């Protein structure tokens, strides 16, 4: 009688999902680890390339370039902010870690673009594909990062590349969703006009759909960048370098100051990238409206 009122009601049947899950990961690791390791290679190449460039550029030149870009795209306020922010970052001694973080974010976002744009385009074209993709994106976005950190480490081992992969998993969905949305929102009459003048599917995609969806796609890029930055600390847990390190170490050793400036640098970089990419999207929007 009492058994019905408590969770003992489930006792007769136990679903060992936890074991299946562990077994699946072990099986993947045993049989396909080389394949997963091979997947790291292109990411590693991009990451190393970006990191090398950022490490090579003298800080003063970097700040000048950043300020010039910000001025051109987002106005003098953002330019002034970026000069102040990066100077401060340099002065608190976090320049090199910031460059590592920037290269990780850049590499993640580049890979997200390469994967996300085509998937978004396909999702916009086919309702079936979109239906299949949606739950996958939901899982990617809502699964707490700590849950997939262990499988990622088992399959890709630890380090910055593994951190980038974890970042990609988390940061990819909004780009796909907003690419899909942007393309679906392109007015039908414009597409019809392009069709009426004998455009091929390809021409309609590149000359009409993508350009008109660009403001929305840029909003997706902005979201992806923000999510990538929010993963910096978590990625540091599996051995990724960058600004996450001082935060994690500071946390472990209760060095509040160290964790604090690490966090501040992340926020400054985030604000800078957000304003810059938003301005890019809006510039297109006002130009396009």
């Amino acid at each position, binding site marked *: 009688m009492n058994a019905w009122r408590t969770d003992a009601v489930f006792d007769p049947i136990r679903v060992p999902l936890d074991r299946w899950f562990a077994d699946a990961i072990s099986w993947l690791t045993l049989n396909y680890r080389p394949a997963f390791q091979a997947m790291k290679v292109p990411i590693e190449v991009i990451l190393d390339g970006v990191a090398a460039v950022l490490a090579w550029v003298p800080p003063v030149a970097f700040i000048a370039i950043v300020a010039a870009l910000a001025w051109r795209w987002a106005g003098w306020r953002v330019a002034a902010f970026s000069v102040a922010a990066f100077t401060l970052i340099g002065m608190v001694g976090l320049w090199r870690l910031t460059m590592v973080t920037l290269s990780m974010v850049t590499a993640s976002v580049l890979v997200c673009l390469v994967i996300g744009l085509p998937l978004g385009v396909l999702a916009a074209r086919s309702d079936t594909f979109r239906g299949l993709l949606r739950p996958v994106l939901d899982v990617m976005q809502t699964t707490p990062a700590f849950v997939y950190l262990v499988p990622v480490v088992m399959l890709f081992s630890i380090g910055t590349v593994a951190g980038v992969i974890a970042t990609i998993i988390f940061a990819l969905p909004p780009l796909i969703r907003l690419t899909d949305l942007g393309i679906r929102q392109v007015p039908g*009459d*414009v597409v019809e006009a*392009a*069709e*009426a*003048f004998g455009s091929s599917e390809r021409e309609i995609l590149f000359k009409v759909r993508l*350009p008109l969806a660009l403001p929305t796609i840029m909003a997706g890029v902005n979201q992806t960048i923000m999510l990538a930055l929010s993963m910096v600390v978590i990625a540091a847990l599996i051995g990724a370098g960058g600004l996450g390190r001082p935060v994690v170490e500071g946390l472990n050793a209760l060095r509040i100051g160290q964790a604090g400036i690490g966090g501040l640098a992340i926020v400054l970089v985030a604000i800078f990238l957000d304003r810059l990419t938003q301005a890019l999207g809006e510039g297109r929007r006002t*130009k396009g*409206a």
Partner: protein
Amino acid sequence: MIRVESLHKVFGPRPQEALDRLAQGEGKEEIRRATGHVVGVQDVSFALEPGEFFVIMGLSGSGKSTLLRCLNRLVAPTSGHVWLATEEGEVDVAEVGARTLRRLRQEHLAMVFQRFGLLPHRSVRDNVAYGLEVQGIGRAERRRRADEVLTMVGLEGWGRSLPAALSGGMQQRVGLARAIATGAKVLLMDEPFSALDPLIKVQMQDEMIRLQRQLGRTIVFITHDLDEALRLGDRIAIMDDGRFVQVGTPEKIVTEPRTAYVADFVAHADPTGVITARTVAVAPDHERVDELRREPGARVIAHRTQADVEVVVGDDGRVQAVLADGARAAPTPVDELLAEPIPRARGRDRAPVVRGDRTLRTLLEARTRVNLPLLVVDDADRLVGLVTERELIHAIIEKRGQNGDAATEPAVAAGVVA
């Protein structure tokens, strides 16, 4: 130029079933209830001469937009043929493969849209050049041609602007320029002026008439506005429920509506720009024209409404003299009279001579200057008939001519009953 043969369009998963039912004489509504299929276009056929301005007119839901889209297969016809004349002979747009279809759209069938359909991120010039770009024409050449056409539609100097910087009327000029620039011989125009303000709309219609005189393209023009149809069309097709109810010249549509549906439409139309002089005039042998006497080589006639004016018609059919108030009134081309300001009192010293294809409006304007019967003549200057105020009033109120009365009246009466 373009020849459409028993075109059908049925929307739904099994259109053949609906077609079979149509063939068995079932109505559109019956089929919709029985099968859920919507019949958009039902057995439409027509053929256009090169340079013809063909207007398809109907209310929303009449299937006119669907029909237009069948012509370039933006909507695939369910059955029937769309024969298009090209350099390689006639091709059936409904049957060709995807690649040929694209080429036909690029080079032979350009389209203008109600909502303009411009690319907002491209400059006006690049919008106009879009069709050429898709054809694979080089940048310099397509820019040159785009600028040329922009000048033609009165948008010189706007090439670098974005469409958003232009007013609605100007945007539609861009749409028009884009269609003209491809060099397509056939222009498909889907209610191109319906989204514009009334004044701009009339301006654009004038512009269209001017351009068509210059370019001589074959045009299929969709509208729900009868006055627009009457102004622009060489021929008008009235469409209802997916079918052509009547096809004819604007004048025929207005003066001889075949069904109650058409009659309802034209009831509020302005006939003055449509009805021609030869329709309004009473022939010399009409019962209202009396032969007063014969002279050597000529006869003298008078219209009963203005019996004091005598017209001397030679045996060759030409007017020799007009006698009013005991004096001779000189036969004078109507345009000469219209060039003068309206006098305080209407003269009786000159008799206006009008060709048969001039409109009722011209006749009315002539009558504001002269109080004599108007002499309507054919191309060889032979008298076709006379027009007095009686005929003018009749034409405006009844929207009908004098000679075909007996033939048209029963048709309209039958239509009203049905």
